[in-house]
Structures are given as structure tokens and as C-alpha cells.
């Protein structure tokens, strides 16, 4: 109080200083507001666009593998680039997102059985996974396995590009077709925020046709996967749209047109009753990440 009294009242000159301080305060508030609100929106937008790009690039991987199998050509290698992250905007305080791309030739298997009597038809395995490390947008896994591309975010997953699976009634017969891929190569992971290249080459490709007369057989498809929600939803929707009747999980289908899907600790188990014709296009693709 004594100090205040000593300074005394002065009505001259201070208004300009106050105005300058106020102007600087307004400026700082604007800058603070930009970094607190606008920059995260920009960052989220960049990361969202990047994730769409990765989705498209994985669909490109899927299409390239399908092309290799259809062409049955082991001498041409197809390349697809995968952008691992965003460029960031350092000048706006927005960091770079990055990611990891992993080829795991032992992950995610598919096994077919035609039961009664049990008969192992085939097994394939391997998947390619992109794991994002975003700063603003929710992290996602983008996965290629068994001919389809899955996007997993938090607890859910769904297909953005369906596998080649079809089940139809034709003249009282049930026909099922499925393309399954084995991805070979070294277990490898590449990371960063630039572009990486997925090199794909066909090792072998063939179509196996199975035909069972009379009441056919119950076709069992065991899928080991980390993304069972996507597979369960996909099989359920595809088969119901095709006119099949879904039974409760764990129920064995007996009559023509029935199927059931059972979730297991490792993935899922699809059973379709009285299948007469099962065509399985198989491909073994050598993958190399650079």
C-alpha cells in the first residue's frame, strides 16, 4: 500500500503501454488458441487422409495378388508402395505420424475340413499388417489376410475389401468357392514415415475342385485370426444374403441351406451343411518388404 501511495496517481502515458500489453496478450491468445484447437484438427485431417491412402494401398496389394494368381505367372514381380506416415507440419507444431508394416508368414491360418468322414482339404496362412502410430487420429491396423483387407480400430474390425468367398444354391446343389492365400517370406517388420515397397511374386497357384454327390458334406472352415469380428460379420452377411439360414453358435448344421459360426479362442469356425461342390483357388505368394 505504501508503495502504491508513493507511486501516486498518474493519468499520463500509461494508456499506450497498457494497450501494447493488451495487444500482445491478444496475439498470444490467438497463437495459443491456434495450437490448442486448430493444429489438432489439421493433424487429425492429415492422419485421416493418410489412413485412407493406406487402405487404398492395401486394396492395391490385394488386387496385385489376385492378378498374379489369375495370370499364373511366376516371372513377373508386382510392387505396391505403402506410405508409412504423414509428413507432419513442424512449423505448425504438428508432429509426424509413423507406422510399422509387418509380414508374418505364420499368422492367421485358414483350414478346411469336409467332415463325415473328416477329410483335410487344405490350409493356408500368413498375413501382412500395417500398424499406425498416429498422434491425433485413432490408431488402426490395416490387414491383408486370405484375400481380403481388414481395418481394425479399437475393439472392432471390418472388411474394406472382401475376400473371394461365395456360396450359392444351384439346382438343389450347394456350391462354395473360396480363394485362400499363403504368404511366404521372412518374418519382417519395416517402419518409418516415408514410403515402403511391398514386392509380390507368385510361387504357385492352382484351383482345387472338390465334388461330393448325394447329400454332400458339411464343410468346416477354421480360421485363426486376430480379427474374428470382421470374419464373423462377413460370413454371416454373405451367407444370409445368399439365402442361407444361420443357426446359433455351436450348433451343428444338418439340413441343406443351414450354417453356423462359432467364435473360438483363436478365431472362428464356420460350418455349412450339405455342400456338394467346393472350389478352392490357392495361391502361394512370396512377399518381400523394402
Amino acid at each position, binding site marked *: 500500500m505504501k508503495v502504491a501511495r508513493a507511486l501516486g496517481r498518474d493519468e499520463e502515458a500509461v494508456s499506450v503501454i497498457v494497450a501494447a500489453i493488451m495487444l500482445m496478450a491478444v496475439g498470444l491468445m490467438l497463437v495459443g488458441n491456434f495450437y490448442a484447437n486448430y493444429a489438432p484438427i489439421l493433424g487429425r485431417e492429415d492422419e485421416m487422409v493418410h489412413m485412407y491412402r493406406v487402405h487404398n494401398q492395401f486394396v492395391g496389394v490385394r488386387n496385385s495378388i489376385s492378378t498374379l494368381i489369375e495370370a499364373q505367372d511366376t516371372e513377373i514381380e*508386382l510392387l505396391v508402395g505403402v506410405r508409412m506416415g504423414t509428413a507432419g*507440419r513442424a512449423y505448425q507444431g504438428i508432429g509426424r505420424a509413423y507406422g510399422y508394416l509387418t509380414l508374418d508368414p505364420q499368422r492367421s491360418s485358414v483350414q478346411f475340413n469336409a467332415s463325415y468322414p473328416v477329410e483335410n482339404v487344405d490350409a493356408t496362412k500368413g498375413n501382412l499388417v500395417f500398424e499406425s502410430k498416429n498422434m491425433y487420429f485413432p490408431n488402426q491396423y490395416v490387414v491383408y489376410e486370405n484375400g481380403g483387407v481388414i481395418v481394425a480400430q479399437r475393439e472392432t474390425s471390418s472388411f474394406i475389401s472382401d475376400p473371394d468367398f461365395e456360396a450359392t444354391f444351384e439346382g438343389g446343389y450347394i456350391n462354395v468357392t473360396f480363394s485362400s492365400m499363403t504368404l511366404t517370406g521372412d518374418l519382417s517388420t519395416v517402419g518409418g514415415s516415408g514410403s515402403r515397397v511391398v514386392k509380390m511374386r507368385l510361387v504357385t497357384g492352382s484351383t482345387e475342385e472338390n465334388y461330393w454327390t448325394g447329400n454332400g458334406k458339411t464343410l468346416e472352415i477354421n480360421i485363426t485370426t486376430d480379427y474374428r469380428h470382421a470374419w464373423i460379420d462377413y460370413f454371416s452377411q454373405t451367407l444370409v444374403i445368399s439365402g442361407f439360414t444361420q443357426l446359433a453358435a455351436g450348433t451343428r448344421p444338418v439340413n441343406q441351406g443351414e450354417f453356423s459360426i462359432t467364435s473360438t479362442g483363436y478365431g472362428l469356425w464356420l460350418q455349412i451343411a450339405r455342400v456338394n461342390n467346393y472350389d478352392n483357388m490357392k495361391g502361394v505368394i512370396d512377399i518381400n518388404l523394402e
Partner: protein
Amino acid sequence: MRKFRTKREDQGVSNVVATIMLLAIFMSLLGMIMSTYLPAWARTNEATHMLDAADSFLMLKSNIDTQILRSEVDTTMTTTMTLGARGGPLFGVGRSSGSLMMEDFASNNSMYNSTELMMRGKGAINFTTNNYYLDNQRFHYEHGGVILEQGENSVMKFAPNIHIRKNNNDIVFSATLITLRANGVDRAQGTSTVAIRTTLLTKEGMTYLNQTVGLQDAKLRIYTAFTATWTQYFTETCQAGGLAAGDFTVTENAAGNWVEILVRDCTKTAIRQAVVEVEFEK
């Protein structure tokens, strides 16, 4: 002469001083932005553009390979390519530009066995940047591969479909020779996005199972401006394919305009030849 005297005044100047000080602060902030912040911004834009250009060339290569693999003659695929970086008039951040050019008669290649010419290809697509902040880069698609050149150095960014492998003493040499033929617009400059339309015109393939002693050698000669890059690529491909030093020879000519790889005693030589029409659409 009347002497000019300034009047003593205790009031009023503080406003002027404060305004000048504020202007000084503003000018120093603007100067800092112009000298530090904007170059970082522009450099990031150009770096992103370089990554995009590499992706576009990878997509171009992949599309042409896919067309050859599918053998769908007269079908067209489109690859988009943005010639310049993002930028804008704000504070004078200029957009870097680029030049895209189709070279019909560049980069010839020829495949021979021991006695005769088997197949050949030619043509290249060239993209050169005109950056303000980063070093300029040049992307060059030739013989099915993409070469990236920066300064004095160049690397095989995306390898062509030339495979040489040795399994149990059997050497397999397979190559896809691509001829690029310009149709209509064959060059583009500026900052805009250009569509590169590629159409497969013809494709043929031959497989030689070389049984005759003395007729088992395969030789591929490539005319290029990047002889060192191709020499390194061929050498690494042969070594990675399991060939011994005596199984192959890579030669550069003295003039430095071609590279030749000779692979001895090939059990199988598989060659494809494709003609692809290229058109730029602005």
C-alpha cells in the same frame, strides 16, 4: 540564418515511441518468420512432393507391369502425377515446379542368345523437379525400372522385372523388355496434376530351353545414361540369385552409354516383349 530550435515538450512523444516499438517488434517477428519459418514450411512441402513423385513412378511402373501380366491388349490404365509442390502466395512461398517428358528413342535394350537377337525394347519417361529449397531430383523410368538421380548419384529405386536365379546348377534368366511409344502429348511442365495414360498394344513372350551346348549364353545390352546404376543392379541381382562369379559378366563400354550382362549356360531363358503407348493428359 534563423536558428531552428526544438521546443521542449514533456507530453505526447510516448505514443510515437510506443508505436515505433510495436512496429519494430512486428517487423522483427515478420523477419523471423520469413527467414526461418517459411523455408522450413517450403522444405517440408518439397520433401512431401518428392515422396509423392516417387509413389507416382512406383504406381506407373506397377500399372505397366500389371497390364503386361494381364495381357489385356488395348486396355488403358491411368496414373496421376502432380508436377509441383504445394505452396501459395502467403508470404511469398513459391510452388516448385517439374517437367515430365516422354523419350521415345531413349534407352534401347536388346536381348541376345549366343547367336541371334531375340527381342528388344526402348523408351523412357523422365521427371525433373525444379525445387527452390531441396536438391533437385530426377526420376527416370526405363527398361521397366525406376532410377532416382540426385546430384552426382543415382540409385535403382524400383527394380525392373529382370530375374536371374541359379537353383541346383540350373540358371534361369527372365526379362521383360518394354517399348514405350508416345501418343499425342508427350511432355508437360508446371505445377498441375497430369494423368499418364498407358495402353498395352502388344505382348509376346518366348521361352528358350537351352539344351544345345554353345547356345546357352544369354546377353542383355542396355543403352542408358545410368551405366553405373545398372552395373551395380545387375551385379547385385546375380549375386542375390546365387550365381557364382564365373556365371556372369557385366560390362560397361568405354563411351559409358551402354551396359551388357552376359549370363553363361542358362538352362532357361524367358523373355517377354511388350509395347505400351503413353499419353499425358493435362
